[in-house]
């Protein structure tokens, strides 16, 4: 009982081969699209890598890049094969390669699906990474003279300006860290010394935010300092003066949007690849049956699996078991090795011996 059996005439086989050739070339284009999407995602993550605490997120764009390249190669090869498959003579050349090629394509198609699902599943990991990364970035905001961190101030400022956000979850996060370096604090001033002494860890904390938190929508000049005590702090003015959103939320939304669109495109590409794979399988089985029947002009059957799913699984399992067994036969004493049966041995009387005198 074959799975998905379809009968093909000669004309239909040739048409199938032509269509598959065209589809394989379209798949090469979609493979390049996949590669391009992976590259785009890599660049986007690289832009704000400094505010992410772990680089593990990079496996998603790397996966997309490798599957994109693999798609190009496999489908380029497949296009060549399909073009030759229209003719039974040329098919003989590829007969042995077809089955491994189909298995490779099947695995590669599952990788594409895995890539698509990863795009959707990465949100929680990204959330954690952004929270920790932004917290560290804000803590090291003032360290513009420490090697390895000199650009962090610029990155955080540009981030807050571009994404219209302030702090990790809100602008009050800036009140809890010292974001002005001690280099620029006048230690001779009593006000400064008092403030630092009144803090447990000796940090200079203030209710002010950097200039990059200022909102461009505000109708009045930005109020950055003395935010808790400013006289114009009524409900409406608080809304407009600084950016309200936290940068963690802003970046998360940005990346989730990108990943969702990429994930959708990759899913569509996966469906297309699956279609091509099914077509190639039908073509392979149809051509093999034609060769088995011997007559190139006759009709032949094509299928996805020769027997039902359960039988195919069982036979494959047996193959794997026997693969293991061929190494065990000599050693295992429990296996009954059959000897020749006694009836087969001829009685010595029956043996005609030529006696010469």
């Amino acid at each position: 009982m074959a799975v998905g059996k379809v009968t093909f005439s000669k004309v239909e086989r040739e048409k199938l081969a032509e269509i598959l050739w065209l589809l394989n070339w379209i798949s090469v284009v979609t493979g390049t699209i996949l590669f391009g999407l992976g590259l785009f995602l890599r660049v986007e993550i690289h832009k704000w890598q400094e505010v992410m605490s772990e680089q593990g997120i990079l496996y998603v764009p790397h996966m997309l890049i490798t599957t994109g390249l693999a798609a190009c190669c496999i489908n380029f090869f497949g296009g060549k094969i399909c073009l030759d498959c229209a003719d039974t003579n040329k098919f003989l050349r590829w007969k042995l390669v077809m089955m491994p090629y189909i298995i490779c394509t099947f695995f590669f198609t599952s990788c594409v699906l895995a890539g698509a699902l990863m795009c959707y599943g990465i949100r929680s990991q990204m959330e954690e990474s952004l929270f920790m990364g932004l917290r560290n970035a804000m803590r090291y905001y003032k360290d513009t003279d420490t090697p390895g961190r000199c650009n962090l101030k610029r990155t955080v400022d540009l981030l807050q300006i571009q994404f219209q956000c302030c702090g990790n979850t809100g602008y009050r996060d800036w009140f809890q860290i010292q974001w002005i370096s001690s280099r620029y604090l006048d230690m001779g001033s009593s006000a400064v010394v008092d403030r630092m002494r009144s803090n447990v860890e000796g940090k200079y904390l203030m209710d002010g935010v950097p200039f990059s938190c200022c909102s461009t929508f505000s109708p009045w000049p930005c109020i950055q300092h003395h935010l808790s005590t400013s006289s114009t702090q009524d409900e409406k003015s608080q809304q407009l003066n600084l950016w309200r959103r936290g940068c963690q939320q802003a970046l998360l939304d940005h990346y989730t949007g990108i990943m969702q669109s990429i994930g959708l495109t990759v899913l569509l590409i996966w469906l297309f690849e699956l279609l091509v794979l099914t077509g190639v399988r039908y073509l392979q089985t149809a051509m093999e049956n034609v060769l088995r029947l011997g007559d190139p002009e006759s009709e032949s059957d094509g299928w996805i699996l020769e027997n039902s799913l359960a039988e195919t699984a069982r036979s494959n399992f047996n193959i794997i078991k026997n693969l293991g067994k061929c190494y065990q036969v000599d050693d295992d004493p429990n296996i009954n090795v059959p000897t020749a049966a006694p009836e087969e041995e001829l009685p010595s009387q029956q043996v005609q011996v030529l006696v010469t005198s």
Partner: protein
Amino acid sequence: MPFMPVKFNLQKRVKLAQGLWMLYWFSVIAGILIFSLGIFFKIELRKRSEMMDNNESHLVPNLLILAGLLACGLNAFGGKVCHDSLDPIKFSNWKPMLKTYLLLCCGFNVLLVLVSLLCFLMQFSVYLTLAEGLSYAIRFYKDTDTPGRCFMKRTLDLTQIEFHCCGNNNFRDWFEVQWISNRYLDMSNDVVKDRVLSNVEGKYLMDSVPFSCCNPGSPRPCIQHHLTNNSAHYDYDHRTEELNIWTRGCLGALFSYYSSLMSSIGGFVLFAIILESVDMAGLKYLSTALETMADPENPECESEGWLLEKGVKETFSDLLTKLKTLGRTNQVEGGDAPEANT
């Protein structure tokens, strides 16, 4: 004596027709590019029209859009003619229109030359409009409650952030205007009152700049206020401090952006002019080669193609006499009419 004659056999004619067809389609793409460049330039001018006091001239982008559309149309027609040129029946339909078409192409080339010249010359106009517009923008920065100017603050802030600039020529332009509205000044405060009274025009001037002048690349938190007072900040010298705020003026920044945009568009239009001239020459050769076939029934025969039927000087003198006779036919009738009256 034809000008620049070339002998053609069947193969050469076919090659010329095919090559010219491809060249015409390249020219259609070039036309589409000119059209999109025109639209892009128009959008860029619109985006910052507030910085130019809504006075900017849209002549160049409008001409570019028109030229792009014309280029698409003319070149598509030319491509169709080339495609049909090897079939004598189809070509005979287009033959009578070819002369007018080539004249139109000439006129279109003159238009392109004009557009390219304008791209380079109008940069002066853009500079002057920007200078005037930016000075108004700085003056009206504080008027966020005046209808028609409520978004001036936001636009100027975004421009300064995007183009990394401060003020008109430099940051000191902000010292000369009151950029904090009276609504947000505490008039009961003595310091504020003193400052307003000490100014001749009653303006609240200070040596501070808006936050959008701040440079994110500065190693220290931005110093916006009391910029010229070294003692107001710890370890600060305004003469040597370069990274704190943007030092470039927005006039220079915006003008260099627009001038590079206009120069590249002008360069591309020059390239389009060359492409169009090559197209015209090719079409002239093709049409004359097809017309001078000794035996129209036999496609294999040889023929000659040229750019001008007579030499350059003779063609010009012919043209001049034609123009003169055109004028004279009007005069002759005028001379007859008074005779008829008497």
